[in-house]
């Protein structure tokens, strides 16, 4: 009888060990190699379905490899990466934004494997444009494989523009200001923004910074090679920003989020929205007539387009880097990308994949992208997390009239200097 508890104890112990083993990331089961991929859960179900199809296609072609996809919401994904990278629980592949403020911190922590060997083996350098490749090599090695290249521009309601007597999208900044005045005079809210998610209003501030300072100074400022206190264009930027937020943005924007402000655009109460290529699908989902909405690049006058990149990285301590690289090779192949771009946006990171059967609304992005000579990135990706928090605090102080625009640059520089 005494043996019974011992047997139970041994059995439970083995079960526990087996359970714990099952918890670790990746591994070999049934002679197959399992690789794990931490990624964002897409907001559109169709996009998640596409990912599952691509994974299934890969597994069919590679019966010795299985891909375990773990999708999470944005903040949960960041938490998962922070707590698992560098440990035995880290995934083989992880998604991240490529800018130094987000993905850069993971790379600084040594969480990413240098993929130079795989770039040579698969010839990836020829697969991606110089712009997307620059996000891979910006940290000195070959970190990550391009996943998406997001572009942002101004969506406008053609009917509201016509009501205000505007017959064409603005092509320079002065025209944009003039159009905003006309819209306001016609009783229409020119621009919608949601302020509780600071990154939404930040898009306006970033674009004004590019407009007033130009591309070179913008880059010098965000890389801290120029002083925010000394560049006169910074004060001009904040002054313009204060004017926009007080006169041309939906009243009360500071206390609503981007979803609530987006409803103003979809319901025809606001004429413009500064959004990315993901917004085309949202316009469709909201039931707006596609031909009633146009897109134009924020007229900064620099020929750079607003946007950011997202990459997939292989963990530095992955036990299956070859299999992971093989999957990323398939994910960015022409075959998979044709499926991918149908639901993820209008452009592929693979230069050989040109959208087929593109409708007129999605095609509005083509001339905008073709006309751009570079990218100015969202500043929550350029700056460190603590700098971004301060950048947003100052942005909101100016927007609510609590800080004089002329003092905003010095206030931000003071924070940078004290770091």
């Amino acid at each position, binding site marked *: 009888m005494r043996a019974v508890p011992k047997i139970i104890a041994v059995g439970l112990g083995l079960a526990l060990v087996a359970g714990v083993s099952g918890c670790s990331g990746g591994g070999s089961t049934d002679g197959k190699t399992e690789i794990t991929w931490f990624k964002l859960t897409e907001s559109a179900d169709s996009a998640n379905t596409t990912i599952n199809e691509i994974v299934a296609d890969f597994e069919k072609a590679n019966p010795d490899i299985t891909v375990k996809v773990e999708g999470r919401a944005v903040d949960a994904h960041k938490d998962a990466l922070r707590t698992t990278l560098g440990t035995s629980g880290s995934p083989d592949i992880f998604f991240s934004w490529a800018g130094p403020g987000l993905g850069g911190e993971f790379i600084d922590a040594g969480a990413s494997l240098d993929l130079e060997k795989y770039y040579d083996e698969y010839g990836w350098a020829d697969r991606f444009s110089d712009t997307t490749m620059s996000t891979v090599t910006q940290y000195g090695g070959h970190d990550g494989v391009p996943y998406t290249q997001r572009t942002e521009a101004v969506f406008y309601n053609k009917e509201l523009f016509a009501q205000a007597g505007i017959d064409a999208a603005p092509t320079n900044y002065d025209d944009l200001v003039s159009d905003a005045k006309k819209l306001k005079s016609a009783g229409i809210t020119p621009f919608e923004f949601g302020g509780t*998610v600071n990154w939404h209003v930040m898009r306006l501030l970033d674009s004004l910074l590019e407009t007033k300072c130009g591309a070179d100074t913008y880059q010098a400022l965000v890389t801290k090679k120029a002083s925010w206190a000394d560049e006169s264009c910074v004060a001009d930027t904040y002054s313009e920003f204060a004017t926009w937020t007080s006169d041309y943005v939906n009243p009360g924007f500071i206390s609503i989020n981007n979803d609530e402000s987006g409803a103003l655009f979809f319901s025809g109460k606001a004429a413009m929205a500064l959004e990315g290529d993901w917004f085309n699908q949202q316009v469709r989902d909201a039931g707006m007539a596609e031909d009633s909405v146009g897109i134009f690049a924020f007229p900064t006058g620099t020929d750079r387009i607003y946007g950011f990149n997202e990459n997939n990285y292989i963990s530095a301590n992955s036990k299956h880097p070859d299999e992971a690289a093989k999957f990323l090779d398939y994910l960015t192949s022409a075959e998979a990308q044709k499926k991918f771009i149908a639901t993820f946006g209008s452009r592929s990171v693979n230069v050989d994949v040109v959208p087929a059967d593109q409708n007129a609304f999605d095609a509005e992005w083509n001339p905008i992208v073709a006309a751009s000579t570079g990218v100015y990135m969202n500043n929550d990706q350029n700056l460190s997390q603590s700098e971004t928090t301060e950048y947003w605090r100052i942005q909101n*102080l100016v927007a609510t009239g609590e800080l004089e625009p002329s003092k905003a640059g010095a206030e931000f520089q003071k924070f940078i200097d004290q770091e």
Partner: protein
Amino acid sequence: MSTTSTTAPSRTSRTSRPRRRLARFGSTGFIAALPFLAPALVAYLVFVVAPALESVRLSFFEWSGFQGAPQVFVGLQNYVRIFTHDPVFWTALSNTVIWVILSLVIPVGLGLVMALALNRKIFGRNLFRSVFYIPGVLAPIAIANMWRWMYNPNYGIGVNLAQLFNLPWLADVQWLGDKNLALYSIFAAFVWQIAGTNMVLFLAGLQGVSPDHVEAAKLDGANRWQVFRNVVMPSLRPTTVVVVVLTIINSIKVFDLIVGMTGGGPAQQTQVLALWSFQQSFNNHEYGSGNAIATVLLVITLIIVVPYMVWTAKQEKNS
């Protein structure tokens, strides 16, 4: 001989004191109770004390929070930083103090008044008790969402009231966007959430007030206020201690409502210490600063709560 005779009792006294203490310790039943307390004690040490000590330790280090990233000892630098350089810390501290003071006055007072009112035999008493208590069982983040919708500047309750009563200025009030108003707008939701819970605690306490004492006071000629002041309130002292301590602790660590309604904005004007500690650690990857703020929060809590509990214990003993 005389020396021996005088020192011997003294030595005996010194050596026997620990024994007496031990005997007293045993006589309290602590040792007998230890096996029963042990599981909870171990859980408390592992899940409360150890993380708290780890948090204090991390406040002396610079660390990004990434596994494998080095933890660099920086001494008191994080404390110097939050007290002198952090542009948000003092706003967060000030807001936390305001929140605690208001919490001790409004929801506690309101809870007591509701309890006194609903301790009488009135029509619909149980219904009112339930209605007032229900907000206390809702998830704070759900309450935050609900009140955020009510405060929405485009279709919230202010806009509707403005139309109903022809008060256009009401539609322009930025409940969560005005830095002078936002904190108090969130606090209104907190009162709605917590007053019913205080009411239930006071109601429970009121059941312990002896009707004979109340009757005797009335016979002695005491008016309503005198009965409340000299009979009811002293009987409610243990309950009041619980309510006050819980209120202080809950208000010092207020977090979810602010996250859900403003996220600390606009421009960090509704920031509080608990949320700023979290954001410094998890959003800004500044675990040293975040834990320094958490340690300050812990010290403030102990400074307020411990003397209050000692004082009330003495009052209880004296009475």
